[in-house]
C-alpha cells in the first residue's frame, strides 16, 4: 500500500516553503505576487494501516502546535481538495536515486516508533493560483524545481509503488578496441564520456594490443578517470613550450618548475627552521602549528556541477573539500572553511542570458544555500570568503571551497601494507556522480544538463559528520594505516591511488549499494558522496567495525592491498579488470602543449575630466559596486562561530557589520595560538597582465593576514587556477605567466605554496536563436588562499576605527596604478598601469607592520585593496562608527609628473614663488590616483597619539605617512592636495583651505555599501 501524508501549516504565516518560493520568484523577476501554499509530503510504502499512518503524522511528521495533516492512499482525490480557490497543484519530487536525506532519516525514525516502512519518498506539493500555462511552466522550471535532480508532476499524484532499481544480472563487457580506427577511438572517447585525447586513446589501444586482448569497460573507465585532467592535472604537470615576453622556454613539468620549485627553494632557505611538513603530496598541504598539531589546508573548485545544479554542486563541493583534510595523513579534524564565488551579474536581464544557463541570481542563491546547509550541518565554521561578479562567469560560475584541519604531529604518514583490508566507510554507493571526474574536465555546452545529469549530486552532510566522528576516534586508536577520500573518480581513484605502490584486489559485490541494479562498472566509478577508503590491518578490523557500528556508520571490507603491482577487480568471483599499476599511473603519454603570452603594452589612461574637486560620488559608486559591496546577507547565513574558537569574525566593528580583512580562529580551545585565513583574487588585473594579477593576489592574501596580526614569516598559501580552454596557446600562456609570478613572489617572501588545484576548460558553448555559435570563456582567475598563524590571539586587531583623537597612518606607497582598478571600472576608462608588486618593499612592510601590531601599537588596521585609500578609509570609519579626516598631501607616493604636468608645475612655481608648493600641486589627477589607485602592499593603521613616535620608529625605512585623524563627528572628509588655482590673484590662496575631495556622512557611505546585495 502506498500512503501519502501531506503536512500543512495551519497559518499561511508559517508556510516557510511558500514564502521561500514567492521570494525566489520575486528575485528572479516575477512581478506579480504569487499566491501559493505548500505541503511537505511523504509517500510511505508498506503493509501499514490508516491508524499507523495517523500515528506517524501526529508523533513525528507534523508539529502539534503549527501543523495539520492530510492522509490518504496516494491517488485519493481527497488529497487534492485540501484548499479551495487554488487552480493548480504541482508536485516536486527528487528524481529516483537522488540523495534524499529526509527520507532516510524519516525511515529510521519511524522504525523507532515501530513502523516498518519498505519505501519512503519526500516531495513538495505546491498549490498555485492565477498563473497561465506559460507562467506556470516558468515557475516550475526556474523556481520550484531543477530538472537535473527533480521531477515535476503537474496535477494529482498517482503513484502505486516506490520501487527503485532492478536486479542486476552480471555480464562482462569487453570493448573491441583492437579494431578501432582513429575516428572510432575519438568517438568512443567523446560519446562514452571518457574525454581522452586521441593520443591517449591510441596508447591504451597499443597497451592492450601488446597484451593480446581487449580491455573491459571498467578497465577503460579506470584509465579515463586516472588520466583525466581532473585527477592527473596533465596540462599543468605536462611539458609546455612557452613563448613569453622574455623569450622562449620549455617546461618539462610546468607546476614542478614554478610553484613546487618555489616551495623547495624556500624549504632549503629555511633549513632547520623549515615549517612545511608535507606539501603537494597528500590530499592537502601540511605545515607546523604547535607542539601537538600541524595545520592542514586545501581549496578545491566545484564549478561544473554548480553550473548545472547550484545547490547540489556547492553542497558536494564543500563536502568534498572537507574530506581532503580528513583524508590527509591519517585524518585531520576539519576546523574551518572558506568559500569564494564568482558569478555573473545578478541584475543581468533574463533575455540576455546565453541559452541553457541559469540566471545568476538563482545560481548565487543556490550556491550560497548549498555551502550554508553543508557547512552549518557539519559544524565547521565558514569564516572567510569573497564574492566576485563579472559577465564572463555567466556560463561558468566558479565555486571555490576550502577547508582547514588540525592533524596530530604523529599522524602525518600513511603506510598501507600488503595484506591490509581495503575498507569503504560512510555513505552507500549509487548511480550518482557517474563520470564526474571526466565531465569536469570537459567544456560545458547548452546540452550539458541533459548529457551529464548523472554527474550532479546532492550531499548528505550528516552522513559526513558521522564519518568524521568515527574516523577521528579510529585514528586516535591507531586502527588504520592509510586513508583517502573517495571524491572524483570514486573507488577507482581512491583505491588506485592508495594501492599505487602495492597492488590491490577488490570484490565489487561487497560494496554496499543504495539500490539494486548497479553494474560492476557503476559501482567502481560512482562518485557517491560521503565515503572514505581506508587501509585497515586485519588485526584491527573487528574493533574498527565495532566502532563504526556504535556510531551507526556502515563500514565494508571490499578487498585487500597486495604486493602484486596490479589492480584486480572481481564481481562475484569473475575477473573484470586486471591492470598494471605502472601503466595506470605512468602510462599516460606526455603531450607537449604550446603556450604564448604577450601582455598588452600599458597605455596611459585618459582619466575622466572633472569639473569639480569632489570625488564623493565616485567613492559611493565604488562602495556600491558588487565586488566591494557588503556581503553581510551571505555571511550571516554561515555559522562562523561553531567549535567555539572564533577570534576575529568576518564582520567586525561597533555594529558588527564592517568587513574584516581576515578571520582568526583558535582551533584548540585550551590555547591562545591562532590560525588566520584570508584570500586574494582579482581577475580584472588579469585583463592587463596575468603576471601582475598573480603577484597582486598573493600580495592581497598575505597583507590581509598581516592586517589582523599574522606573522608574515609563517604564512602558507594555496593556488587555485580557474582558466579557459588551455588548448589555445594564448590561454595556456596566460597561465604560464601567472605561475611564473607565483614562483617569483613566493621565493622573494619565503611564503611557500603548500597545495593547489586547477580547473581548466571553463568555457561555455552555445548558439543564438539564429544559430550563431558563441563561446563564453571566464577570465583567467587565480585564487590565492592564505593560512597564517598568530602566537597570541589577544594581539590581533580589527579594521574598525576605535577612538576619537587617534591618528591614522598610510603604510606603503601609492603609485599611478589605476589599471584594472574599480575606479577604472566605474568610470569606464581603459589603459593605465596594472598594480605591480615591489617584493622587497612589500616584505619589509609586512615585517615592520607585524612588529608594530604584535607590540600593541596599532588600534586598527585595514589593507588597501579594491577602491584604494578612499574605500579603506570609508570602511574603517563606518565600521567604527567614528568620523575621520584625511590629508592626501601626506600620503606616501611615487607619482611622477608627465611632460604637460611638469610644464604646468614650473609655471605655477614661477607664479607663486613665496609658497611652498606640494610636489603634486600641478598634477591634474593626483587626487584621483591617491584616492583610488590599487597599488599593492599598503595599509591604513590607527595609532594612539602616545604611540606614534614608537610606531614611526618601528616603521623605519618603510614608506609611511601620517595621513589622517579619527574624529567624533560621523563624517568622512578627505582633503586634497593644496594648490593655488593658476592665475589666481596673489594673496587669495590660503594653503590651509585645500579642497575637500571627499565629504560624506558615514550613514551615506555605509548605505551605499550595504544596499546592493541586501537580499
Amino acid at each position, binding site marked *: 500500500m502506498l500512503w501519502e501524508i501531506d503536512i500543512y501549516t495551519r497559518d499561511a504565516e*508559517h508556510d*516557510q516553503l511558500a*514564502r521561500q518560493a514567492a*521570494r525566489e520568484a520575486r528575485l528572479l523577476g516575477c512581478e506579480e505576487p504569487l499566491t501559493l501554499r505548500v505541503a511537505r509530503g511523504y509517500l510511505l510504502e508498506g503493509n501499514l494501516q490508516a491508524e499507523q499512518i495517523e500515528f506517524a503524522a*501526529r508523533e*513525528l*511528521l507534523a*508539529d*502539534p*502546535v*503549527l501543523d495539520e495533516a492530510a492522509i490518504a492512499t496516494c491517488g485519493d482525490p481527497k488529497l487534492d481538495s485540501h484548499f479551495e480557490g487554488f487552480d493548480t497543484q504541482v508536485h516536486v519530487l527528487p528524481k529516483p536515486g537522488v540523495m534524499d*536525506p*529526509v527520507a*532516510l*532519516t*524519516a525511515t*529510521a*525514525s519511524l522504525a*523507532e*516508533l515501530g513502523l516498518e516502512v519498505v519505501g519512503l519518498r519526500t516531495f513538495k506539493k505546491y498549490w498555485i493560483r492565477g498563473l497561465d500555462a506559460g507562467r506556470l511552466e516558468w515557475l516550475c522550471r526556474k523556481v520550484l524545481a531543477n530538472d537535473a535532480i527533480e521531477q515535476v508532476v503537474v496535477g494529482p499524484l498517482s503513484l502505486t509503488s516506490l520501487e527503485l532499481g532492478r536486479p542486476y544480472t552480471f555480464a562482462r563487457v569487453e570493448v573491441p578496441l583492437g579494431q578501432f580506427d582513429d575516428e572510432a577511438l575519438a568517438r568512443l572517447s567523446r560519446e562514452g564520456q571518457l574525454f581522452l585525447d586521441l593520443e591517449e586513446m591510441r596508447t591504451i589501444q597499443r597497451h592492450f594490443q601488446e597484451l593480446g586482448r581487449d580491455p573491459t569497460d571498467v578497465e577503460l573507465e579506470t584509465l579515463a578517470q586516472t588520466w583525466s585532467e581532473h585527477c592527473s592535472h596533465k596540462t599543468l604537470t605536462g611539458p609546455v613550450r612557452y613563448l613569453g615576453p622574455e623569450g622562449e622556454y620549455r617546461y618539462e613539468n610546468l607546476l614542478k618548475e614554478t610553484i613546487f620549485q618555489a616551495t623547495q627553494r624556500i624549504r632549503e632557505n629555511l633549513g632547520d627552521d623549515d615549517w612545511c611538513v608535507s606539501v603537494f603530496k597528500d590530499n592537502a598541504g601540511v605545515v607546523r602549528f604547535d607542539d601537538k598539531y600541524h595545520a592542514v589546508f586545501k581549496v578545491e573548485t566545484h564549478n561544473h556541477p554548480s553550473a548545472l545544479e547550484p545547490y547540489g554542486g556547492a553542497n558536494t563541493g564543500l563536502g568534498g573539500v572537507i574530506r581532503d583534510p580528513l583524508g590527509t595523513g591519517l585524518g585531520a579534524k576539519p576546523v574551518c572553511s572558506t568559500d569564494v564565488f564568482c558569478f555573473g551579474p545578478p541584475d543581468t536581464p533574463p533575455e540576455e542570458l546565453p541559452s541553457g544557463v541559469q540566471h545568476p541570481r538563482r545560481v548565487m542563491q543556490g550556491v550560497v544555500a548549498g555551502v*550554508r546547509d553543508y557547512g*552549518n*550541518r*557539519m*559544524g565547521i565554521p565558514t569564516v572567510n570568503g569573497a564574492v566576485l561578479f563579472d559577465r564572463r562567469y555567466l556560463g561558468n560560475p566558479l565555486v571555490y571551497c576550502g577547508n582547514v584541519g588540525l592533524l596530530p604531529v604523529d599522524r602525518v604518514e600513511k603506510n598501507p601494507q600488503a595484506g591490509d583490508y581495503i575498507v569503504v566507510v560512510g555513505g552507500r554507493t549509487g548511480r550518482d556522480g557517474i563520470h564526474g571526474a571526466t565531465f569536469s574536465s570537459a567544456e560545458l555546452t547548452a546540452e550539458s544538463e541533459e548529457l551529464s545529469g548523472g554527474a550532479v549530486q546532492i550531499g*548528505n*552532510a*550528516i552522513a559526513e*559528520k*558521522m564519518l568524521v*566522528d568515527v574516523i577521528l576516534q579510529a585514528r586516535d586508536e591507531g586502527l588504520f594505516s592509510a586513508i583517502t577520500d573517495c571524491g572524483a573518480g570514486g573507488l577507482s581513484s581512491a583505491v588506485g591511488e592508495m594501492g599505487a605502490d602495492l597492488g590491490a584486489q577488490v570484490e565489487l559485490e561487497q560494496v554496499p549499494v543504495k539500490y539494486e541494479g548497479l553494474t560492476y562498472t557503476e559501482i567502481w566509478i560512482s562518485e557517491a558522496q560521503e565515503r572514505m577508503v581506508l587501509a585497515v590491518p586485519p588485526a584491527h578490523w573487528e574493533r574498527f567495525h565495532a566502532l563504526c557500528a*556504535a*556510531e551507526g556508520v556502515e563500514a565494508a571490507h571490499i578487498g585487500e592491498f597486495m604486493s602484486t603491482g596490479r589492480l584486480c577487480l572481481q564481481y562475484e568471483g569473475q575477473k573484470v579488470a586486471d591492470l598494471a599499476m605502472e601503466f595506470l599511473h605512468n602510462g599516460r603519454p606526455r603531450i607537449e602543449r604550446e603556450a604564448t603570452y604577450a601582455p598588452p603594452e600599458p597605455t596611459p589612461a585618459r582619466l575622466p575630466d572633472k569639473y569639480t574637486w569632489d570625488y564623493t560620488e565616485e567613492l559611493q559608486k565604488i562602495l556600491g559596486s558588487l565586488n566591494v559591496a557588503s556581503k553581510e546577507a551571505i555571511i*550571516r*547565513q*554561515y*555559522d*562562523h*562561530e*561553531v*567549535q*567555539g*574558537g*572564533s*577570534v*576575529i569574525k568576518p*564582520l*567586525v*566593528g*561597533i555594529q*558588527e557589520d564592517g568587513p574584516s580583512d581576515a578571520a582568526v580562529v*583558535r582551533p584548540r*580551545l*585550551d590555547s591562545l595560538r591562532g590560525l588566520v585565513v584570508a584570500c586574494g583574487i582579482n581577475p580584472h588585473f588579469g585583463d592587463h597582465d596575468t603576471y601582475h594579477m598573480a603577484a597582486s593576489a598573493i600580495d592581497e592574501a598575505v597583507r590581509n593576514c598581516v592586517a589582523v596580526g599574522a606573522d608574515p614569516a609563517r604564512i602558507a598559501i594555496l593556488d587555485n587556477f580557474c582558466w579557459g580552454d588551455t588548448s589555445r596557446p594564448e590561454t595556456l600562456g596566460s597561465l604560464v605567466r601567472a605561475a611564473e609570478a607565483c614562483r617569483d613572489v613566493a621565493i622573494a617572501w619565503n611564503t611557500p605554496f603548500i597545495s593547489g588545484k586547477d580547473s581548466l576548460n571553463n568555457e561555455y558553448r552555445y548558439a543564438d536563436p539564429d544559430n550563431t555559435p558563441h563561446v563564453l570563456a571566464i577570465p583567467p582567475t587565480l585564487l590565492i588562499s592564505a593560512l597564517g598563524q598568530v602566537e597570541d*590571539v*589577544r594581539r*590581533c*586587531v580589527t579594521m*574598525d576605527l*576605535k577612538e576619537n583623537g587617534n591618528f591614522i597612518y598610510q603604510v606603503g606607497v601609492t603609485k599611478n596604478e589605476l589599471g584594472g582598478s574599480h575606479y577604472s571600472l566605474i568610470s569606464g576608462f581603459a589603459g593605465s598601469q596594472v598594480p605591480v608588486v615591489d617584493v622587497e618593499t612589500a616584505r619589509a612592510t609586512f615585517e615592520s607592520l607585524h612588529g608594530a601590531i604584535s607590540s600593541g601599537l596599532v588600534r586598527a588596521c585595514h589593507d588597501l585593496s579594491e577602491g584604494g585609500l578612499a574605500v579603506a578609509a570609508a570602511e574603517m570609519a563606518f565600521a567604527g562608527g567614528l568620523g575621520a579626516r584625511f590629508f592626501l598631501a601626506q600620503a606616501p607616493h611615487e607619482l611622477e609628473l608627465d611632460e604637460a604636468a611638469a610644464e604646468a608645475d614650473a609655471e605655477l612655481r614661477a607664479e607663486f614663488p613665496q609658497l611652498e608648493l606640494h610636489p603634486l600641486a600641478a598634477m591634474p589627477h593626483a587626487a584621483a590616483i591617491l584616492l583610488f589607485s590599487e597599488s599593492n602592499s599598503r595599509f591604513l593603521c590607527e595609532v594612539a597619539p602616545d604611540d606614534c613616535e614608537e610606531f614611526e620608529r618601528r616603521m623605519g625605512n618603510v614608506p609611511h605617512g601620517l595621513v589622517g585623524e579619527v574624529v567624533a563627528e560621523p563624517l568622512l572628509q578627505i582633503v586634497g592636495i593644496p594648490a593655488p588655482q593658476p592665475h589666481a590673484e596673489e594673496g587669495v590662496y590660503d594653503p590651509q583651505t585645500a579642497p575637500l575631495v571627499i565629504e560624506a556622512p558615514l550613514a551615506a557611505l555605509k548605505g551605499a555599501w550595504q544596499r546592493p546585495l541586501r537580499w
Partner: protein
Amino acid sequence: MAQPHVLVLRSPGTNCDEETAFAFEAAGGKATRRHVRWLLENPHALREYQIFCLPGGFSYGDDISAGIVWANQLRQRLGDALHEFRDSGSLMLGICNGFQALIQTGLLFHAARRSELPATLTWNHQGRYEDRWVRLRAGSTASPFLEGLETLSLPIAHAEGRFVPRDTAALNELKRNGQVALRYALPNSEPAPDQETLPYPHNPNGSVGNVAGLCDPSGRVFGLMPHPERYIHATHHPQWTRRSGLPEVPDGLRIFQNAVRFFTAA
C-alpha cells in the same frame, strides 16, 4: 558537594558537544561526551550524572524539523529515565538544537502527550539561517542557570528558532509560571516597550513575546536558542578589540558556572 558530573549527549549531527563540554570544564564541572546510542543501551548510567546537556547542532540533519527526530528517540526510548532524572533535583540544559529537542520531548512543560505542547520553535521569520549576536534579558525566574544575570550578550546561530506559543493563553500560562527565562532585548539591554515584538535584528527571528529561552516551573530544566558556550573567552565577543564595556567574566561562562555552583555551593 563535590564537582558535578555533566553528561553532554551527542547524536548524529550534533556539532557543539566539544565546546560545550569544554565550557562545563572551564566552569569547574566534570564533563563527559557520549553518543545517544550509548545512553539508549545504558539508561541507568544517567544516575551517575548531576547535569544533563543537549548541545547544539543539527541532530539527524534537522530532517523533518529541527530536533524532532532526536526528541522522538529520547521520548520513546529514554522517557522514564529522563523523567526520573529531571524529578530528582538535577539540572538539564538544552542549547539551540538541544533546546529545540528539549521542547519536543515535553520535558520543559510536564506535557504528557505531544498534542499538549503549549509552544514550539519554527522557521525564523526571515526564512533563513542566521548567525549574529543579540542582547538578552533574563526573566523573573528562579532558574539557577541565570542567577545573578540580568542582561547578557550571546550569539545565536539557527534557522528554526522562532518561538510560537499555541495561543495567548499558553504564553500567559508560561509567563505566570515564571517559565519565560530569557527574552531578546534592545541593544541598550532595555526590554521591549509594552511587551511588543521587537523588530529585526534585535529579535532576530520574530519570536512571539521576544522569547529566547524557557525553563520548567522548577527552573532546573533550561533551554535557550543562543549559544552560551560561544562566549566563555574574552576574544569570543565580536567587539573585544574595542576594549571597552565588556564584562570581566564572559556572560556565557557565567551560565555554566551557575550550573556547577548549584551543586558545589549547596
